[in-house]
C-alpha cells in the first residue's frame, strides 16, 4: 500500500474551507435498557444482562423506558431544540450480528428533538454557534469481539457476541453542517464534542466516559474551494473516541482531502476508520446502495406525545448548564480571562469551587490549584484532582501560610509531601518540622553571622545602596534551611544596620 499524500494543514486551509458535521451517540445512564427491564450496566459477565426482548426472540413486546424519554427531552431542551409534540419509533433494517433482531429500533421521520443550537467556546474565548439538526432516541448494539490469529477484523476467523449492551438507551445528536471555522475546524470539532459531553454530564443523563464508549463521535468532513457555496463530497470518520483524537481526525481528513482535490481527483464518499497509532484515517466501506435501511414505523411501540405540562415539569428540573455556570463563576471569582480559561482547560472548576466553599478566597484557591498543584500534576502527567490533594488540604495550607507558620516556598514543599501521601499540610509541617523560624533569637544569630562574613555588602548598604541588603538575606535563609520569613529577616537586618525599616 502506498502512503497517502497529505498537504500541510496551512496549505489545505489556505485553499479550502472545511465543512464539518457530527453525529454523537450518547449512552444514557438509566438503570435499565431502552425497551427491556434488563440492567444497563458496564463490565458484567457476557450475556447476563439480557431478556428475551434484547435477544430479539419472536413474539416479545418492547416497552419504552420513561426515564430515557425524559433524558432525551432534557437534552433537547438544553440544546435549545424544539421538542416534537408527537414522535414515533421506527425500525432501521440491517443484517449484522450486533443486533439479533436484524433491525435497530430508532427514530426516523420525526425525532423527539429538532432544530436547536449550542454555543461552543474555543480556547481563546471565541464563541461559535453550532446548529443542531436533531436528537433522537434509539438503542445501542451488542459488542463483537473478532477472533483470529492476528486479532484483526479482516483476518478474523469468527466473532463472539455479547448482548449486554444491546438495547442500552442512546441519544444520537446530529449537527447541521458547520462551515466558516476555517483553520480552527479541528479545535472546533474537539470543543464541540467536549461541550456536548459536559452538557450530558451536567444533566446527569450519561456517564459520558469516552474511554468506555458512553459517548462516541462520528465526524463528517468535506472541503470546498474558498469562494464556493456548494459543499464538497464528505467522508465520515467513525468512532473517534477521545477528544484529542477528534481534533486530529478532522485535521488529518482536511489535509488528506486537500491533497486529493489539489491533484484534480474527486473525494470518494465513504466511511473511514480512525487509526489511533498512526493518527490517520483509513478507508472503510464506500457508501453505496447497501445503505438502504428500509425504515418503517415500529408497530410494537406507540407514539410519544409530549404536552406542555410534561415539558414544563422537565424544564424546571434542568440544572444550571455548564456555559452559564462558567459565566457566573468567572464573575463571582473576579479572575482574569486567561486564568479562568486555564482553570477550565485543566478541568479544575469543580475543585476550585469546592476549595472556595471550604473557606479559601478565590485568589488563593486559584493560586494553589493553577500554580504548584498544576505543576505537580503536569510533572506526574495526571489531572490536578488525581494527586490526592483535596480542597480541604488547600484551605489548610492557605491558613498556615496566612498565619505565617510557613512561607510560600515551604508551602510548595508541603504540597509535594501531601501529594506523596504524607498526610494533611498541618501534619506534614509538624512531622517534618517545616514551620518558619519565627524565633528572633535564632534569626539574630544567623543575621549576625551573615553581617560578620559579608563586610563588603554591609559597606555598600551603609553607603546608601540599600538594595544590596538582598545579598545578606540569602545567607540567612540558607542558614535557617529556608524556614525564615524573608520579610522579617529584611526588617531585622535593616534594624541591625541602622536603616529606616
Amino acid at each position, binding site marked *: 500500500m502506498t502512503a497517502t499524500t497529505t498537504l500541510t494543514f496551512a496549505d489545505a486551509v489556505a485553499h479550502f474551507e472545511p465543512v464539518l458535521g457530527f453525529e454523537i451517540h450518547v449512552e444514557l445512564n*438509566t*438503570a*435499565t435498557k431502552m425497551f427491556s*427491564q*434488563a*440492567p444497563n450496566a458496564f463490565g458484567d*459477565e*457476557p*450475556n*447476563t*444482562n*439480557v*431478556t*428475551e426482548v434484547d435477544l430479539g426472540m419472536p413474539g416479545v413486546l418492547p*416497552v*419504552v*423506558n*420513561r*426515564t*430515557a*424519554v425524559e433524558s432525551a427531552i432534557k437534552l433537547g431542551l438544553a440544546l435549545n431544540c424544539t421538542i416534537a409534540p*408527537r414522535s*414515533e419509533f421506527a425500525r432501521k*433494517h*440491517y*443484517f*449484522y*450480528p*450486533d443486533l439479533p433482531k436484524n433491525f435497530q429500533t430508532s427514530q426516523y421521520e420525526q425525532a423527539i428533538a429538532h432544530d436547536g443550537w449550542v454555543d461552543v467556546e474555543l480556547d481563546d474565548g471565541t464563541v461559535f454557534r453550532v446548529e443542531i439538526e436533531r436528537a433522537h432516541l434509539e438503542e445501542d448494539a451488542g459488542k*463483537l*469481539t*473478532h477472533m483470529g490469529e492476528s486479532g484483526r*477484523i*479482516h483476518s*478474523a*476467523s*469468527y*466473532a*463472539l*457476541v*455479547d*448482548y449486554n449492551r444491546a438495547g442500552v438507551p442512546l441519544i444520537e445528536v446530529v449537527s447541521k453542517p458547520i462551515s466558516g471555522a476555517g483553520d480552527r475546524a479541528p479545535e472546533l470539532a474537539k470543543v464541540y464534542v467536549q461541550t456536548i459531553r459536559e452538557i450530558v454530564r451536567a444533566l446527569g443523563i450519561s456517564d459520558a466516559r469516552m474511554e468506555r464508549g458512553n459517548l462516541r463521535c462520528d465526524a463528517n468532513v468535506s472541503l470546498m474551494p474558498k469562494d464556493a457555496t456548494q459543499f464538497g463530497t464528505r467522508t465520515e470518520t*467513525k*468512532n473517534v473516541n477521545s477528544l484529542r483524537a477528534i481534533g486530529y481526525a478532522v485535521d488529518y481528513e482536511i489535509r488528506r482531502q486537500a491533497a486529493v482535490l489539489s491533484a484534480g481527483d474527486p473525494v470518494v464518499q465513504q*466511511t473511514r*476508520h480512525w487509526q489511533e497509532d498512526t493518527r490517520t484515517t483509513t478507508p*472503510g*466501506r464506500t457508501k453505496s*446502495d*447497501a445503505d*438502504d435501511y*428500509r425504515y418503517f*414505523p*415500529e*408497530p410494537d*411501540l*406507540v*407514539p*410519544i*406525545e409530549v404536552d406542555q405540562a410534561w415539558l414544563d415539569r422537565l424544564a424546571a428540573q434542568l440544572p444550571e448548564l455548564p456555559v452559564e455556570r462558567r459565566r457566573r463563576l468567572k464573575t463571582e471569582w473576579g479572575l482574569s480571562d486567561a486564568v479562568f480559561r486555564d482553570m477550565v482547560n485543566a478541568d479544575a472548576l469543580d475543585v476550585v469551587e469546592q476549595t472556595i466553599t471550604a473557606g479559601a478566597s478565590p485568589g488563593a484557591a486559584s493560586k494553589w490549584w493553577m500554580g504548584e498543584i498544576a505543576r505537580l500534576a503536569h510533572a506526574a502527567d495526571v489531572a490536578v484532582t488525581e494527586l490526592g490533594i483535596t480542597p480541604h488540604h488547600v484551605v489548610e495550607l492557605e491558613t498556615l501560610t496566612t498565619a505565617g507558620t510557613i512561607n510560600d516556598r515551604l508551602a510548595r514543599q508541603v504540597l509535594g509531601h501531601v501529594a506523596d501521601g504524607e498526610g494533611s499540610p498541618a501534619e506534614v509541617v509538624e512531622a517534618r518540622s517545616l514551620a518558619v523560624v519565627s524565633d528572633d533569637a535564632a534569626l539574630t544569630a544567623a543575621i549576625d553571622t551573615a553581617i560578620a562574613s559579608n563586610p563588603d555588602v554591609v559597606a555598600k548598604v551603609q553607603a546608601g545602596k540599600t538594595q544590596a541588603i538582598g545579598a545578606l538575606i540569602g545567607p540567612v535563609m540558607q542558614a535557617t534551611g529556608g524556614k525564615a520569613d524573608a520579610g522579617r529577616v529584611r526588617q531585622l537586618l535593616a534594624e541591625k544596620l541602622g536603616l529606616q525599616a
Partner: protein
Amino acid sequence: MSDLTRDQLTHLAQLAHVNLTEEELDRMSGEVSKILDSVAKVQEVDTKHVMPTSHPIALTNVYRDDVVGPVLSQHEALTGAPEVEAGQFKVPAILHAEGDR
C-alpha cells in the same frame, strides 16, 4: 402497472440476503411486479383527512418505570445459539468492521 426491473430485484435480494439464480431473477421480477400492483390498490383510497398511523389502536405514551426486572441467565440466553464460546454467541467471521454498516 408497476414494472420492477431485474436490477431492482437484484438489489432487493441483496438487501434481504437471499441468493437468487439468474433464472429466478428473470421469473420473479414479473411475479413481484404483480404483487406490487395488488398492494398498490391501497393507494387509490383517499387519505387526505387521515392521519398517518403506525399502530391500530389510538394509544400514546405507554411507558415503563426504569426499574430492573428479571433477566435470563447466561445459560438460558445461549440455549438457542448454534455455537457458544466463553459465554458468548459464536458467529462466522464478519467481513466489515463494526460501525461500518
